[in-house]
């Protein structure tokens, strides 16, 4: 019971519709977790269940050793000591910045409250905006007020519901690492909900990737990218294409992609495998004997992202420096670099890869 937050086989349903099914995970004190997934995967539902706005239909949620949710018994939101930052920030429009931040500090006396509000204003660097109203602030400032307001009562855990989605895309990643820095410095345990993997990578220590109400993989950002345990994870995280290949006894792939070099992976001659090919697995090499026809290309500033056709018609991505400009229809000389490639069994989805 050392975890700050623990979910054990939690399910949440709306009527007959299961929004989250049998979800288990835990966070240590000071860790930042993330619920990542496409829209409708149940991540927001789960966050709201932790906050106490949704009832769990099975399982338990414990916070700092205390059970706050189980089927049929929910601690009301106001008694959970959970701070929440909402997607639209949900600042109280009729209260000034300092009264927004002080809203949850009823238990303190006037002086302690003023002191705490000053601390929080300093924390988010908004000392000069104490008397401003929410509509007078920019989006980024509003977000900082929302953060300060949620942190002011010193919650056991901070919940962030798509906290960057209403901000400009350039601001997002920068803010995400700033917020991470702030939370880490103050030892705050937090959970972030997002559909944006860059935000998740920038913020989280642990990511639970969700699909259709279930956690598909719970891992560190590094492992999620490099060791995806299913094709869904592989396709959701990063760029890449999954192709079907067959392999002969010596490990050579049928369509001339080269030799499969995966250390522990035993294979049988003639077996059909599925490979996750990331754009950086296929390298431009003007000396290579192998050239593949270009299907399409798109300019990415420093790089070109090409789509190349294999002899059997499957398409693979390839990233080249942007001075390599070849038009669709022409061929690009490439070399395959399959040391780190991820291999799945031959069935379209939901299989655990064998490494």
């Amino acid at each position, binding site marked *: 019971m050392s975890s700050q937050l623990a979910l054990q086989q939690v399910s949440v349903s*709306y*009527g007959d*519709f299961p*929004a989250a099914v049998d979800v288990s995970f835990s966070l240590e004190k000071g860790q930042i977790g993330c619920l990542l997934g496409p*829209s*409708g*995967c*149940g*991540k*927001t*539902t789960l966050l709201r269940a932790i*906050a*106490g*706005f949704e009832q769990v239909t099975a399982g338990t949620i414990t916070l700092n050793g205390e059970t706050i949710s189980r089927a049929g018994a929910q601690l*009301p*939101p*106001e*008694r*959970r000591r*959970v*701070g*929440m930052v*909402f*997607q*639209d920030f*949900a*600042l*109280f*429009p*009729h*209260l000034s910045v300092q009264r927004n931040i002080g*809203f*949850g500090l*009823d*238990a303190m006396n006037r002086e302690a409250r003023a002191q705490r509000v000053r601390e929080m204003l300093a924390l988010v660097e908004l000392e000069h905006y104490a008397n401003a*109203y929410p*509509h007078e602030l920019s989006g980024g400032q509003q977000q900082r007020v929302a953060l300060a*307001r*949620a942190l002011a*009562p010193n919650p056991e855990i901070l919940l962030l519901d*798509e906290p960057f989605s209403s901000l400009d895309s350039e601001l997002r990643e920068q803010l995400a690492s700033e917020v991470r820095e702030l939370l880490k410095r103050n030892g705050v345990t937090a959970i972030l909900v997002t*559909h944006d993997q860059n935000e998740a990578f920038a913020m989280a220590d642990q990511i639970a990737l969700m699909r259709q109400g279930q956690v598909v993989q719970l891992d560190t950002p590094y492992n999620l990218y490099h060791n995806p345990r299913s094709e869904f994870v592989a396709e959701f995280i990063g760029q890449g294409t999954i192709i079907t290949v067959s392999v002969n006894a010596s490990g050579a792939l049928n369509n001339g992609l080269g030799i499969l070099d995966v250390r522990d992976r035993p294979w049988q001659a003639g077996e059909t495998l599925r490979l996750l090919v990331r754009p950086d697995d296929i390298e431009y090499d003007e000396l290579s004997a192998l050239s593949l026809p270009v299907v399409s290309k798109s300019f990415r500033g420093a790089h070109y992202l090409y789509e190349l056709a294999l002899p059997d018609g499957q398409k693979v991505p390839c990233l080249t420096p942007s001075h390599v400009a070849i038009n669709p229809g022409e061929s690009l000389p490439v070399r395959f670099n399959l040391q780190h490639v991820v291999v799945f069994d031959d069935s379209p989805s939901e299989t655990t890869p064998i490494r």
Partner: protein
Amino acid sequence: MLVTACLIAVPVLVIVASLFQGFSPAWQHLLDTVLQDYVINSLLLMLGVGIGTLLLGVSAAWLTAMCEFPGRKLFNWALLLPMAMPAYIIAYTYTGMLDFSGPVQSALRAQFGWGYGDYYFPEIRSLGGAVCMLSLVLYPYVYLLVKVAFTEQSTAVLEASRSLGKGPWKTLFQVALPMARPAIVAGISLALMETLADFGTVDYFGVSVFTTGIFRTWYGLGELQTAAQLAAFLLLFVFALFTLEQYSRRRLRFHHNSAQQKPRRIELRGWRGWCAFAVAMVIVTAGFALPAAQLASWASDRIGSTDVAAFLTLVGSSFTLAAIASACCLVIALLLGYGKRLHPGQLEQQAARVSSMGYAVPGTVIAVGVLIPFAWMDNQLDTLMREHFDLSTGLLLSGTLAALVFAYVVRFLAVSLQTVESGLARIRPSIDESARSLGKRPLQVLQRIHLPMLRGSLVTALLLVFVDVLKELPTTLILRPFNFNTLAVRTYELASDERLADAALPALAIVLIGLLPVILMTRTSSAAAPTNPHNKDDHE
């Protein structure tokens, strides 16, 4: 456009100008005797109606927007029904029910064997009575605006309050109500404008306020100038309210929080639910069901002895008048609204704003403001004709339907203008631009694109003004041509003669027609209501 706006502004300007034209001895007399009463009574009336509409409107809005209880869906629209009931009609009806010979006191006497003077019974024909009557029919202004404010409140904001440690009641008083404050103030200001404009109720209950004073000064003393000066004082009150309302509406913008999710209603179970049911039921019954039933009962008693032909003439003349006025309003509103869209300049903005001032100005004031310039024109014309042709034209314009229709346009143009403008606003500018780039001239765009797309708004605008004109009492009373009667005026006359039961038939007709816009309103507001319960998860 400018000409229209100027014409519309004439009555109000005339009233304001009257302040600078010297005061007659009659004014001094008013000042010495009744003016103080007018001010005090008006303030007391506003205070009472303000509190009454606040309590009724906010609790009704809270229950239907934020709670779940038996019959909520029904009450959601039924609470609008009192809007169909003009204040003077509910006043006549309650007087009939509650006075000495009415059914309530008769039943009490029969039950307890009391006689005259044996018991205390509150006098309905008093300031307090007027406050009750006006609150009962004016609370829907507060109800409507506050309900919208509650439903548009972001759930997230209420949830933020919960997660910061505040329970549901604290959240109501510290977050939901303060956030709805601009809507509450705007709703009460509207209700108070109607209170100031009311003539029928206060006249019947013998409460001396500005509107009755203006009418008496003109009708009883024949002092048009002094009546205009009184009207100017009333305008001061109105202006204060108008400013308050505009200010709150501006603040509404800042308090607007995009609601991404419909708020979860608080489930009131068991006795709490039935308490909520009882509160809503009492409001609807007192404000509509009971008086409507009483009117229907009186009307069915008298239907046999009614002169059907005379009644039909009355209905016919009322409808004709209302139809002409609403058509005029519509045409002018279309002109102004479309002009503003074509040339969205400062001048057009101001023209439209000036033209929609009238809704705040009491009918009595407009009537006096119309009477003065029309009488002046008649006098000039008469003098001119007599000097040159030795011919007296007499009163050519004042006391004609033209003067009356003009007054209605001044008073109700805002209603149609607002409807037309909101209809036009829903047509995106890119639609105009694509039609123009496809080679259509502005008038063709109006005809081919806007009119078909606006049809709903146009019908609504017509209907709203039609009903308003039908209900309007003081303007009609002051400006109507000799021997010209409408349903409202006939109701007033019969009630003034204490023939309450006879007044029931025309009154009932007004109430029934008044139901039309209420039905329209419930249909448009329920169309916006449905939500998909399965779509709660993510906000994208």
